[in-house]
């Protein structure tokens, strides 16, 4: 009972902290908008926007008020999920309506990629075991290969895949898959899968994950309580697993921002309908409400992920509650 209370208190405090962070981050985003050179409204709308649209936009974003009052207006609207209407990308459409499905896809791809990365890193860490000088050739080579930015990895991957399909499918007289040649738009799920692979292989994510996971596994495996459990003849696996949940959840949450950055350009390379593609297209067309709405959503995703990670950690490990309570 006491433990549950502690958990609830911790969750409540984390939630309050997360809200505070969100308010602060939205403040930074809003003042980045306000700092636009010259007349903010001219700087953020495409050329030739009709004056009545500009007026509505200025009212939506509180640009016709002094900065602080404008911020409160904008925050109040945004808090209800109302980020205004798209200007160019899908004129007249609510930002949330176009952003929601795109954002779901992006979270699915990034989350899937992170899980895959965690799984592969754990598998490799278990196989490698204790570090030895002989492994350094392997880890050195892996280090080098996975340091490529995700978008370069995506280009290598798509070119390699295209060459492969051309050589072994097209030239052999079979039907080519719908996603071939790669930067083509298709309904197929394969490009999403490819994007996941590329995200794991790029941005140094895998080696970073491997190093963390490996250190944690070794630390638990060499801990004294594991030796004691083994001496008593019990299975060490459940205890090892439970002690690894906390560092694994931390490793997962801490890398979400990296993946959410990588996914933006990768989606563009594979022409996926995700939030990153939407963000870049909207930014290119100067569709300002969409860009701001998505920026807030990306920030929100990171804050929520950290919040969830904190609560999961506290639920699994009572020491977390004691430490923070």
């Amino acid at each position, binding site marked *: 009972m006491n433990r549950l209370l502690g958990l609830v208190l911790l969750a409540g405090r984390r939630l309050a902290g997360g809200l505070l962070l969100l308010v602060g981050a939205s403040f930074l985003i809003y003042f980045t908008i306000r700092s636009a*050179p010259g007349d903010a409204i001219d700087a953020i709308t495409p050329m030739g926007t009709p004056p009545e649209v500009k007026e509505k936009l200025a009212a939506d974003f509180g640009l016709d008020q002094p900065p602080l009052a404008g911020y409160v207006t904008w925050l109040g609207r945004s808090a209800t999920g109302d980020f205004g209407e798209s200007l160019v990308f899908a004129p007249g459409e609510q930002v949330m309506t176009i952003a929601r499905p795109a954002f779901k896809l992006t979270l699915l791809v990034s989350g899937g990629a992170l899980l895959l990365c965690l799984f592969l890193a754990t598998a490799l860490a278990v196989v490698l075991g204790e570090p030895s*000088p002989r492994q350094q050739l392997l880890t050195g080579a892996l280090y080098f290969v996975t*340091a490529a930015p995700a978008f370069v990895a995506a*280009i290598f991957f798509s070119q390699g895949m295209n060459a492969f399909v051309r050589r072994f499918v097209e030239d052999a007289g079979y039907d080519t898959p719908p996603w071939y040649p790669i930067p083509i738009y298709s309904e197929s799920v394969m490009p999403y899968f490819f994007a996941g692979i590329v995200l794991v292989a790029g941005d140094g994510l895998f080696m970073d994950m491997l190093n963390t996971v490996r250190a944690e596994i070794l630390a638990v495996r060499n801990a004294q309580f594991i030796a004691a459990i083994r001496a008593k003849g019990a299975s060490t696996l459940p205890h090892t697993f439970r002690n690894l949940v906390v560092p694994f959840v931390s490793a997962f949450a801490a890398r979400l*921002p990296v993946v959410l950055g990588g996914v933006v*350009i990768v989606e563009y390379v594979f022409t996926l309908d995700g939030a990153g593609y939407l963000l870049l297209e909207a*930014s290119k067309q100067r569709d300002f409400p969409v860009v701001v709405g998505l920026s807030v959503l990306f920030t929100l995703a990171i804050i929520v992920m*950290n919040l969830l990670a904190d609560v999961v950690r506290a639920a699994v490990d009572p020491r977390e509650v004691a430490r923070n309570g």
Partner: protein
Amino acid sequence: MGRFSRIGLWLSGAIVLVVVLLGVVAPFIPYEPADAVSYDRVLEVPSVSHVLGTDEQGRDIAMRLVKGTEAFFLPGLMAAGIAVLVGALAGAVAGYATGPVRAVIVGALQLLDTLPRLVFIILVCTIRNPSVTLIAFVAGVLFIPTVAAVIRRKVEALGSEDYILAHIAHGFHSVWVILYHILWLQCWPIMVRQAAYVFGYVLFVETGLSYLGDYGVQEPDPSWGNMVAQVRSLPPDAPWPWLVPAAAIVLTISGFLAFGNLAARRGEEAIR
């Protein structure tokens, strides 16, 4: 430090040295992108006169590769400087100070840390006139919390060490102890590692945005990113115009990251 690490340090050091030399020399090489175009030598394979071949417009790839370092070299140094200097100071204060000063700095750092970097950079590019300098400045600021976090941990660990307490007991000013004894003498390996990391990030963002084509470096000015972008229109049997800059990006980023890591490890061993 093992044999492989030492070899890695030399190899990555060589890459860093080459990139730095190119970055320093490139601005002094005269190059007019428009004059380099020549449609009678399009997509030539590497030869003696064009060491790395020519691209779709008959421009020498090696020359564009060298000139392309200009796009990220100084911005990368600037971002690394901002992130490491401000981050180290903020981290030291957060690790040493108490009360409201600490609370404010920790809060500000946490706030900066929640912003998704690339998304925020794109937001800034949408609003302001996008230049690589602006992108690098924003990247540098967004990396302050990352640097501050590691420095803070180090300062907190060292703050209770006997010799640091002894310095303060001897009447050294605590600002001097932080700046010299902790940051300068103990934290330089951390700063080297972080600086290399931030530099690599700027290279990634610059080439990534130049690849996309709307922000970053615009054709006909060379950037490794917009050189890679030729992949969209190249015939499959002539991959070198994108393969060469793509390889350069991978080599440079992994070289800088590895050098930062290995040099820092060596430094940490030397301090201990």
